[in-house]
């Protein structure tokens, strides 16, 4: 396991993240699916210690994140959708600062992905399209040889072509041994590339298992994954 999430709890006045548990494995793509407001971002932020869970445990590479934040952050990459850091600074200048924080920064990988993603480092993030912003965030994460990529809604707001392109990149990364964990509310993204599914609804994990097992367990004959999830989510609301 590269990451273990155990019984994460976070209480807000109108929302509870309720004992969220799942694992991430090396060389696998895990799709974190749930409707808007289901608790995906809260879970991801808790995993990264950006918010303080009331209870529960998050471990990366066998180490608890609360005690090993700096070391763990060097080995993971995080991207939150299309948020752009320092929108008016040249990408080249941003990278020049970031790389100094990572002993593992790999200039060869940086230039490889720069070319692969067709990013012009003279541009500023403000000049990039939404899809390119996601790619830039990925580029930064990949250039320090992240072993785990945690991506919050990376495909939201992207056109179908860019989404497809991104999912293909995930597949390539997985083949290189990277664990990719991405949240989405777009079921077809999961259908296309995920090995494992973590399904969250109203703050609770409904299922966390390989996609094939998920289909076997929850789908009825002739149903697509999308049909299954819509049926399950509908059942959850009317429960």
């Amino acid at each position, binding site marked *: 396991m590269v990451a273990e999430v155990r019984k994460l709890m976070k209480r807000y006045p109108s929302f509870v993240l309720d004992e969220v548990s799942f694992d991430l494995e090396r060389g696998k793509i895990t799709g974190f699916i749930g409707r808007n407001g289901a608790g995906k971002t809260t879970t991801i932020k808790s995993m990264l210690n950006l918010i303080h869970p009331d209870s529960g445990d998050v471990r990366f590479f066998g180490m608890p994140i609360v005690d090993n934040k700096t070391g763990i*952050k060097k080995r993971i990459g995080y991207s939150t959708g299309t948020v*752009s850091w*320092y929108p008016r600074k040249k990408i080249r*200048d*941003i990278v020049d600062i970031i790389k100094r924080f990572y002993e593992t920064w790999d200039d060869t990988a940086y230039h490889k992905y720069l070319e692969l993603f067709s990013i012009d480092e003279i541009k500023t993030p403000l000049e990039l399209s939404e899809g390119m912003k996601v790619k830039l965030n990925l580029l930064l994460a990949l250039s320090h040889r992240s072993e785990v990529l945690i991506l919050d809604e990376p495909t939201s707001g992207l056109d179908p072509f860019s989404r497809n392109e991104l999912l293909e990149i995930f597949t390539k990364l997985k083949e290189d041994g990277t664990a990719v964990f991405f949240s989405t509310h777009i079921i077809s993204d999961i259908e296309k590339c995920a090995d494992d599914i973590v399904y969250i609804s109203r703050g609770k994990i409904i299922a966390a298992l390989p996609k094939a097992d998920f289909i076997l367990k929850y789908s009825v004959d002739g149903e697509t994954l999308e049909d299954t999830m819509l049926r399950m989510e509908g059942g959850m609301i009317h429960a």
Partner: protein
Amino acid sequence: MRNILRKEMRLSASVLSYLFIVFGLMFLLPGYPILCGAFFVTLGIFQSFQAAREANDILFSVLLPVAKKDVVKGKYLFVCLIEACALLLMAISVILRMTVFSESDVYRSNALMNANPFALGMACVIFGLFNALFIGGFFKTAYKFGRPFVSFIFAAFLVTFIAEALHHMPGLGVLNAFGTDHIALQFVLLAASIAAFVLFTLLSYRKARENFERIDL
């Protein structure tokens, strides 16, 4: 630590923070409340906090492989660096007014505060208050800076008003010393003000670290 300071200076900072250091030279202006120069320097620093918030700087910094307390330290170091540069310009102005221009009519007939070590000390107090009220206040939430800045404005102008008024009080004329007059007292006041700056900054830094550690981002 060098990396986080470099990040502050090259990514988070607004160019105005650097440009407004020049307001330290307002210590050369006759007939003007010179401590406003210190306030304008802080106005430049405020621009960096505004620019940083628009650039999602705090979240970006926390995601870097550094401890959360180092993010706070980076901000304080950057601000202290700007303040130190401004104080250097103010100190040069004070030295010029104490030596070369000590007999200048334009300064001697100045009804407002003279630029001397006491004035330099008051600038230190204003910077200390900025660090305590503004930066300390900012790190209570890591995004709200309106109220902290307004409280600093009140404090800064209160200090300016008091400093400008004091030497008109009976027996306190020595505060407005020219040249090397009352030099020992002037330096004692400067040293006390520097101590106040250090105290305000360190106490607020420690509190800011604690507050920021508790914040959910």
